[in-house]
């Protein structure tokens, strides 16, 4: 026999303990402690029937608690703080007088807490906690809908079991649909995430195989995000995301060299930075990474040398995720320039003799490095200005840029520098990629947009035998400040959320599914051996899964037992009654819980009265019961003399 409100309260308590476990990793310790203290108070109020604090007091308390939590709000812990606040709200709600809608609100908050915890700390156990919450929530809803109609309803154990069983059945009947979704959902990621937006073509990663003069502008005008890269915070000057090198120039466009031997292995010195990069959906030909990429771990990634990595499966559009290892350096050493030197010096036949005169004028007789510096100085403002508008597009765009308009964007500056260096006999090439990016410190990643698309120059330095990076574009220096305004406080967090959701749910593809099923299969195959690593892991999860409701139930029973003990100590008659029943039980007479005391004694007398020992016990028990009832059923508290007397009867029963 159990009261509906008791059942509902304990189910809610179970929900909350699961939420606590799910959030434990995501929420700061003081918040957890605050939550637990409030919960214990709520539990004590409920279990021991203490007086509830007034609503005003509760509201003041919750406002204070929330203020204390909000004070810990930092740039990088919004979700964590939010989860903490939700937990505290749950505890506060638990302290109040609860009606059906309050329970529903608590359940809503619990689900919110688990979901936000899932976003912050993606660990597999959160999935299991969510699973558990979904079962408990089903039970909770069934209980609430009954509770609304009949708060104090009395249920037998069988009825209670039927409710729980029914709710679990509802949950189980949903499983087939969930399984179907489990296998379908991840494969349609692009569509699923954008179903509310008008359909659009997948973003090509901004760059095609070639960079035509004036084409980068179109990329730069786009508002789209190109990719996000999880990486530590780096100085702005080192934020060059290298894509591909372009060696051949035909007067209008830069193309990659046909001959592959032009590129090869290289060494670079500097800090090693590991980046986890998630490209937006699109047809990705090139892998981007911080300058200089040493290694890229991703599906279909092939190194072409000199830090160029291409995607062998560029026909598949979708999100691309990979890990890149880079050395932050502006120069790279290679050893095979002799064979390919001509590639890096070639220009169209008789290309811009007037420019050659200028070049000779500023570079004659200088070293490679000095030549590069001189060209950089030549292209500097105010002589040349940065613009994205009215770019030179005549039959000789570069000539127009250098000699008449003197305004252009990165590919004009870079092309001009590379061409001038080649005229001066310095091997040089263009590098297409991105420069800059917004650092989202909330979750530790860079947001690189298409407007960060950039082209810069690498020039050979024969003294050091290394490619050195030169960026002649004026905006490259000022650009980082400009971009700052693009993201405000809020959009950072929205983006962080978006990013995490993409990472957790969209990257969960068929491969991960098979991995999971495989581990399950392995466990089933040799279920006996727990030594199996994956199997053991799964068993550990299953164990954890079972441990949770067990813990909730144990908590419930501990509190009920504590309640009983306290009640008994408070009430001497009840203590005496329990002692009597215990003595009788030890004698072998257990009272049916539904029988009265006199019935119990009659039963002993009728059933076993023919044995002298039983008859004596029954007689003593009867004298106890008759005396005891005088107090118990008259609501008179027992006086010490009578208590001693009754206890002496108990002693005699024990002695029989």
């Amino acid at each position, binding site marked *: 026999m159990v009261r509906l409100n008791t059942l509902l309260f304990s189910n809610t308590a179970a929900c909350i303990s699961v939420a606590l476990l799910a959030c434990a990793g995501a929420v700061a310790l003081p918040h957890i402690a605050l939550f637990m203290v409030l919960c214990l108070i709520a539990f004590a109020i409920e279990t021991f029937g203490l007086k509830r604090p007034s609503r005003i007091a509760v509201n003041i308390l919750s406002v204070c608690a929330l203020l204390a939590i909000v004070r810990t709000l930092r740039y990088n812990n919004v979700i964590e703080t939010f989860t903490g606040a939700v937990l505290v709200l749950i505890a506060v709600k638990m302290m109040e007088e609860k009606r059906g809608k309050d329970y529903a609100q608590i359940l809503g908050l619990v689900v919110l807490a688990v979901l936000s915890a899932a976003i912050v700390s993606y660990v597999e156990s959160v999935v299991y906690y969510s699973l558990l919450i979904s079962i408990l929530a089903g039970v909770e809803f069934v209980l609430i809908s009954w509770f609304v109609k009949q708060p*104090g309803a009395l249920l037998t154990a069988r009825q209670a079991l039927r409710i729980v069983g029914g709710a679990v059945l509802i949950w189980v009947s949903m499983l087939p649909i969930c399984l179907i979704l489990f296998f379908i959902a991840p494969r349609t990621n692009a569509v699923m995430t954008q179903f509310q937006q008008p359909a659009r073509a997948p973003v090509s990663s901004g760059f095609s195989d070639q960079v035509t003069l004036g084409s980068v502008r179109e990329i730069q005008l786009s508002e789209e995000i190109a990719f996000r890269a999880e990486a530590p915070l780096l100085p702005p000057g080192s934020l060059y995301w290298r894509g591909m090198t372009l060696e051949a120039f035909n007067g209008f466009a830069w193309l990659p060299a046909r001959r592959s031997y032009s590129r090869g292995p290289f060494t670079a010195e500097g800090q090693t930075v590991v980046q986890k990069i998630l490209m937006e959906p699109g047809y990705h030909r090139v892998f981007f990474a911080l300058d200089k990429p040493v290694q890229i771990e991703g599906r279909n990634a092939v190194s072409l040398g000199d830090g160029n990595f291409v995607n062998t499966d560029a026909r598949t559009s979708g999100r691309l995720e990979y890990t890149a290892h880079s050395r932050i350096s502006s120069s790279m050493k290679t050893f095979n320039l002799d064979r390919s030197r001509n590639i890096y010096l070639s220009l169209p036949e008789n290309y811009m003799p007037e420019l050659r005169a200028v070049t000779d004028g500023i570079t004659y007789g200088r070293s490679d490095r000095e030549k590069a510096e001189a060209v950089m100085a030549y292209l500097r403002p105010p002589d040349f200005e940065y613009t994205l508008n009215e770019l030179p597009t005549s039959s000789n765009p570069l000539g127009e840029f250098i000699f008449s308009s003197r305004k252009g964007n990165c590919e004009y500056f870079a092309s001009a520098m590379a061409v001038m260096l080649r005229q001066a006999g310095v091997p040089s090439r263009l590098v297409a990629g991105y420069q800059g990016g917004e650092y989202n410190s909330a979750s530790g990643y860079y947001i690189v947009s298409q407007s960060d698309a950039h082209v810069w120059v690498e020039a050979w330095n024969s003294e050091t035998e290394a490619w050195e990076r030169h960026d002649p574009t004026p905006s490259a220096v000022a650009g980082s400040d400009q971009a700052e305004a693009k993201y405000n406080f809020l959009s950072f967090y929205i983006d962080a959320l978006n990013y995490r959701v993409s990472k957790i749910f969209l990257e969960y593809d068929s491969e991960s599914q098979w991995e999971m099923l495989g581990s399950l299969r392995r466990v089933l195959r040799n279920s006996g051996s727990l030594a199996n690593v994956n199997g053991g892991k799964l068993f550990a999860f299953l164990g954890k899964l079972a441990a949770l409701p067990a813990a909730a139930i144990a908590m419930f029973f501990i509190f009920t037992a504590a309640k009983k003990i306290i009640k008994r100590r408070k009430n001497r008659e009840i203590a005496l009654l329990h002692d009597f029943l215990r003595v009788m039980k030890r004698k072998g007479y257990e009272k049916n*819980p*539904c029988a009265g005391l006199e019935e119990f004694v009659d039963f002993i007398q009728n059933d076993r009265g023919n044995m002298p020992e039983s008859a004596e016990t029954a007689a003593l028990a009867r004298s106890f019961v008759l005396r005891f009832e005088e107090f118990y059923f008259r609501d008179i508290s027992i006086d010490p003399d009578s208590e001693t007397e009754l206890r002496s009867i108990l002693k005699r029963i024990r002695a029989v």
Partner: protein
Amino acid sequence: MGSLEVKNDTVLAVINRLSPFLHGKNEALIRILVCAFSGGHMLLEDLPGLGKTTMAIAASRVLGLRFGRVQCTNDLLPTDVTGLNIFKADKGAFEFHPGPIFNNLVLVDEINRATAKTQSALLEAMGEEQVTIDGVTYRLARPFMVIATQNPIEHSGTTPLPESQMDRFMMRVSIGYPDRESELGILRKGSQKNAIDGVSPVLSAESVVSVQQAIERDIVVSDRILEYILTIAEMTRNHPQIASGISTRGAMVLLACARCAAWMQGRGFVIPEDVKIFAPEVLAHRIQLRGTARSGSSDAEGVLQSILNEVPPLT
């Protein structure tokens, strides 16, 4: 039928006085006394010829109550029960002739033979303890008790009591066949109706009222007992086999019976056993079972017994 050990002197005297006529009907007598002492009415459901009338007459004699009798037929009018105003030519005015209901103990034989209208007049009188005739309200005698009988087998030409009216009876009791030894005694002695007339009363109408008041006043009822009764009532309301559970009046009546049981056993307070002993008879006709098992009284009592076996009385 649960039995209880009577220790109260008054009740013992009543039983002793009637012992030559009881022939194993002690338990039925005790139930009549419970109804009388707690101000309730009784529905005796039994086959004819099992001593219902004799029982009622004997009880009225020994309690010193005025006895009235209504034999129900389908042409019985409400005024035949309540009485009516008759024009007296010599006085030139109407004079009220009280019906059989203006007695202390009224035996209503075969109540289900009366029309709905007459039943309703009777039951209203039972509820209100007063009748209104031609705009004048007359109070009934105190104590006032109805023992109605009903034949459970015969159905043709009867108007069964509506469920809502059943609630007005404190208990529904069946006497049943006497055991062989008692029946032998009855046969040996023959009809004793005349002998019953010679029984001298133990109580009077006034002392019955004072006993009623004493029980109400002196028997202590702990909140534990009230909780127990309410739990039983709640269980009947949530029970899957029961369509409609016990009303608040039902719970009050159960408490009154428990009080009386405690008093009869010479105890100044109520214990759970007092509640249990009459619970099936007090509650069975107040619940309606779901589905097929609607009519059988034994089924309802069985369900109630199962509920009693599920509610822990000591908390």
